[in-house]
């Protein structure tokens, strides 16, 4: 008997939970409705109003359980995880995007992003062992790692390190025929990545490591090379599945990012959520703690493992 997509999803989620319970992570049930959200420049949020005591209080749907988990970590320095409905106000639903999706996110104390690459490998192998009938993704001991710089050198012909200055990136992009008016460094970096590197990533699983710190505000900059972040992304079947990093606890740095983004949104006439001071406070109390975490798209992981090609197959009731 062939299991349906929803049964497959339930079984894999069960394996994910067992994995973290077996490794003594505490599960945290994080709220979906929150009073403020991390003002990351590229996240667009759903917002609503709470008719609380005759007042209209603005509330948001979380884009990830990150801020709640970090607040939990600040109060109880325990390895923790959450499987949380996460919401992003995306332009359209398609094979790899939906406005609501399940994010698995976990944090470990006294670990770095390299430990989390291993942890991700372990999780995937565990799921494969517990669900051998579903698995299409090749079972391998561990998945290879490629630094972002190598991908640039190989497919773009230049290392992005030589383009760290805004004007250098703009000049380079212009020469390649990209539109650069009003474009940010992050947009051009990602546009070049999507056009010239991603098509060559292929279907095999890879960890891409060493992202520019410039576009990774919540990640700890690498000590030896501070323009690089201690960050990785897991790709499989050409899709980004997970994003992990050693965490940045520099409250002032992150506060500046949020303030800049708030100003930016107000200037564009967009809604600008209040800065989550509890989150900043939590980061500050974690400043002497070394910890790392991963956010992983459960639906996309299931797609990569089983060969299901459309995320909507796993979310038929939307």
């Amino acid at each position: 008997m062939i299991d349906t997509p929803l049964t497959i999803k339930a079984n894999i989620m069960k394996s994910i939970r067992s994995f973290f319970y077996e490794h003594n992570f505490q599960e945290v049930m994080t709220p979906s409705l929150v009073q403020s959200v991390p003002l990351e420049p590229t996240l667009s949020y759903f917002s609503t109003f709470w008719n609380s005591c005759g007042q209209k209080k603005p509330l948001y749907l979380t884009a990830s359980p990150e801020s709640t988990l970090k607040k939990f970590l600040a109060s109880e320095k325990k390895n923790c995880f959450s499987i949380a409905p996460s919401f992003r106000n995306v332009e359209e639903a398609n094979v790899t995007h939906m406005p609501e999706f399940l994010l698995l996110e976990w944090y470990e104390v006294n670990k770095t992003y390299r430990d989390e690459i291993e942890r991700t490998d372990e999780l995937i192998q565990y799921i494969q062992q517990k669900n051998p009938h579903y698995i299409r993704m090749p079972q391998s001991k561990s998945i290879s790692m490629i630094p972002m710089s190598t991908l640039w050198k190989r497919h773009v012909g230049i290392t992005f390190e030589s383009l760290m200055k805004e004007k250098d990136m703009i000049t380079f992009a212009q020469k390649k025929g990209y539109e650069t008016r009003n474009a940010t460094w992050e947009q051009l970096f990602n546009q070049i990545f999507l056009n010239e590197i991603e098509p060559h990533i292929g279907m095999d699983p890879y960890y891409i490591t060493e992202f520019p710190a410039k576009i990774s505000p919540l990640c700890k900059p690498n000590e030896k090379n501070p323009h690089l972040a201690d960050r990785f992304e897991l790709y499989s079947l050409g899709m980004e599945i997970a994003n992990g990093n050693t965490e940045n606890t520099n409250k002032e740095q992150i506060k500046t990012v949020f303030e800049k983004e708030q100003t930016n949104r107000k200037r564009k006439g967009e809604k600008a959520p209040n800065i989550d001071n509890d989150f900043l406070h939590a980061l500050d109390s974690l400043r002497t703690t070394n910890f790392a975490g991963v956010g992983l798209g459960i639906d996309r992981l299931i797609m990569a493992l089983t060969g299901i090609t459309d995320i909507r197959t796993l979310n038929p009731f939307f």
Partner: protein
Amino acid sequence: MAMISTADFKKGMFIVFKNEPHQIVEFQHVNPGKGSAFVRTRLKSLKIGKVQEFTYKSGENVEELPVETHEMQYLYPEGEGFVFMDNQNFEQVTVASVLIGDFVKYLKPNETYQILLHEEEAVGIRLPKKVRLLVTEAPDGGARGNTVGGATKTVVVETGAVVSVPLFIKQGELIAIDPETNSYLERSN
């Protein structure tokens, strides 16, 4: 020069890409992890028919090719294209084979079609929802294999296209076909 943004994209729209006219075959929005929004497109070159992918920044400005629809009669093939004549002003235009693509198998001389022109040059043909063609060869009798509902047989129509139709269709009948899927729609007598 008509500038539009990616927010205005529609399937089938004509734009300038790398200084050449292209048609948007399809597009979807993508959000790389913790990155801003992008629009991944598949663009067909009007010059060489090749389809390639390109990812735009969401909101980026793109030059739209203003295109007019003309009712034109198909006359005959010529070289690497097909000659059509405008029903209103009798001007003739050659539409390159790459722009007709698979529709060539439904082209019937003296039939009127909607030809898309940009500054008097053909950039494409708007596929009709159905084409009406005569069945010229139809085998009698049933289809091979089991016949649980929807039994079909293949026939040839006047333009040479081969279509699967229900068993009751005979030679000499007019049928309507969906040119996008090459599927039988109905009898058309």
